[in-house]
């Protein structure tokens, strides 16, 4: 009987709630919205990068294949700007993460006035970016800017000059494109640290205290506890935050625009500001789209490689 018994098939249900396709039905509304709001513009951007769209061919752009990309990679300015963008992103994200982590570790301890301190530290994040950048622009002024005044009053400026670290004093933050770039980095560091601090603080507060208690019993030093407990357990929180921070910093347009005052001086520009310049100053929409696609590819490769290397999406065991 058993061997001959026919395999009993479950009756086919007409109820969508228990079918194999059910999850996809649940996803469908979101997918439709995504298709209209995200995938279509993304695809349109890709399409534009294959056209010669400019002011003259605005309404009827011609398909030109990969010409925009071949011209992009032939342009030496693309690579110098790319290198500058890597410096911009690496310095910013490194200081954002290390500064944010340092402050988060401090705030995670029992400190007098901790909640007030936390509010103060989060202020840069709460102030609109535009206002912060404008304030920084004022602070970087050669004559009356706070930064140069501090360097002057403290004597640090002259020391830096004598030591050969700077070649001009007072520092022409807004007049020399290289210093403008440095000034933009300072501004963006100030803007970005609070986000990382909040992310790290959230991660730190979710770490079970018993790990530290066990480490204390074993006689671990603070550094050993930080290296063996805090950092690994923060990784699932920190890794996606680093990817996000990298994408945001790589594509940061406002700070450069406000601090530099324009996109005209190439020596203080990064890739995304060049996209803006090509698109909105020179009306080369096709070429600007090729720039955007290149940026997208760079960030995608970085994101995948980083997450894979750090195993950031895996659970900590």
């Amino acid at each position: 009987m058993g061997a001959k018994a026919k395999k009993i098939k479950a009756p086919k249900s007409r109820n969508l709630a228990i079918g194999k396709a059910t999850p996809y039905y649940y996803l469908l509304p979101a997918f439709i919205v995504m298709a209209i709001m995200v995938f279509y513009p993304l695809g349109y951007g890709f399409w534009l990068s294959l056209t010669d769209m400019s002011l003259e061919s605005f309404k009827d752009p011609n398909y030109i294949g990969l010409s925009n990309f071949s011209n992009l990679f032939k342009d030496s300015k693309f690579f110098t700007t790319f290198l500058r963008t890597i410096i911009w992103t690496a310095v910013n994200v490194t200081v954002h993460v290390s500064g944010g982590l340092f402050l988060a570790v401090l705030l995670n301890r029992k400190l007098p006035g901790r909640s007030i301190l936390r509010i103060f530290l989060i202020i840069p994040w709460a102030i609109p970016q535009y206002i912060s950048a404008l304030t920084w622009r004022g602070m970087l002024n050669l004559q009356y800017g706070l930064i140069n005044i501090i360097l002057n009053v403290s004597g640090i400026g002259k020391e830096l000059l004598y030591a050969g670290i700077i070649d001009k004093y007072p520092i022409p933050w807004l007049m020399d494109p290289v210093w403008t770039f440095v000034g933009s980095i300072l501004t963006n560091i100030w803007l970005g640290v609070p986000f990382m601090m909040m992310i790290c603080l959230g991660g730190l507060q979710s770490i079970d205290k018993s790990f530290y208690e066990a480490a204390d019993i074993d006689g671990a030093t603070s550094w050993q506890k930080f290296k063996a407990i805090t950092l690994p357990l923060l990784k699932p929180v920190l890794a996606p935050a680093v990817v996000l921070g990298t994408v945001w910093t790589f594509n940061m347009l406002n700070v450069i625009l406000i601090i530099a005052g324009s996109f005209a001086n190439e020596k203080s520009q990064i890739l995304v500001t060049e996209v803006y310049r090509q698109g909105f100053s020179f009306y080369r929409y096709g070429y600007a789209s090729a720039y955007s696609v290149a940026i997208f590819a760079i960030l995608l490769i970085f994101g995948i490689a980083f997450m894979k290397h750090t195993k950031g999406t895996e659970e900590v065991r």
Partner: protein
Amino acid sequence: MKKMFGVILVLMLSVSLFAGCGSNKSAKDDTPATNDTSNNADTDNADKDTDKDQDQDADKQSNEKVTLVVWEQMEPALQEAFDEVEVEFEAAYPNIDIERTHYETEELRTNFLNSSVAGGGPDIVYGPGDNVGPFITADVIIPITDVVTQDFISKIDESALDFTKVSGKYYAVPDIFGNNITLLYNKDMVDTAPQTWDELVEVASENRDADNGLYGLLYNEREPYWFIGFFNGFGGDVLDSEYNPTLNTEPMIKALQFVRDIREENGLGIEGMDYGAADSAFLEETAAMIFNGAWSWTSYIDAGVNLGVAPMPTLPNGERVTFYNATKGYSISKEVDLNDQARVEAIRAFLDFFVGDPENDAKFALANSQAPTNLESRELDIITSDPLQVAEQETLIYTKPMPIVPEMRGIWDAIRPELEAVLYEGKDPEQAAADMQETAIDNISKIRSNSYE
């Protein structure tokens, strides 16, 4: 299956990060150009030149309720004036509704271009004259003479209209004219406005006490719009008749040397002075003179500065420092169906009311201290008795029209880094002029097409 489901969810979540940006833009871009129907008629403003059949057709069509969509880039004072005139307009033309949407300069240009590709957008777009050039090249606006009559055109100052002229056709109806930089002085510190550059140096030096934070002259030295007056004054033109750059010239070398000497030789100003520094110092009465535009005048008066406005002084060559003037005005979208008589009538009525009416145009002119373009407006008491209007019209004589062609973007972008290099890095003006020219050629070749090497 579970894994795949997880992957899809992660993908959805990641992509959703960008959804907010997409939806916002889309909502803005999709401002509808509606064409509601209703009753009510007004044929008073029917075109006198149209034939009888067209008049009958227009009568029929003008019964329709029309909503005119206007996108503008107006300063707050102009927006207030617009709202005031709009109320009167809608009372006079109950069958026409105006939907006004405000954008900043770049946003207006981009959104209008995008909406034109999508086949929507506004009927009328209002903005600075230099938007007109790109709009013509992109073929998104029509000559105003397709809609307005010669009678209407004759009411407007020809020099302002010429600003919008390309290939013999006018592409905008300018309502205000000016935007030029000129010499402003604090009457409590300077008795009489200097007429020559030497006089200016003398007066500025008398008022300078840098140790106590007092300056004779400050201005936005690093901005090409403030520099161009010197270049023009030395006889330069940024573009030739075919809109090719002409920057590597004697006037450019002289102008670069001259602006560097303002600080280095004349001992005026401060290193790195920009708009904010100059503006604040003049407001706080720590600067006796400033070069600034009409947009700033009321803020100085409101702050209690005893303001004097004068034409720019003459250069050593006897010519005045000649800044650009510019217009702002209304252009008509190419998406407007010229066969839709009701809509065409509505646009005609709108322009006639807002610009063709002398008193209304005067309101816009007074709102931001620029000259009205309506010739009759200039004769009105409210204009002739307004000291700022008188000053604006006096200084406007010593300016020249700014080219509106898209190539100007390539010019501005080429001047700025070289100007900064001359001012702050000691670059040789001759070398700077040559490098500027090279950059401008490169920029303009990019603007004109995707002409890849």
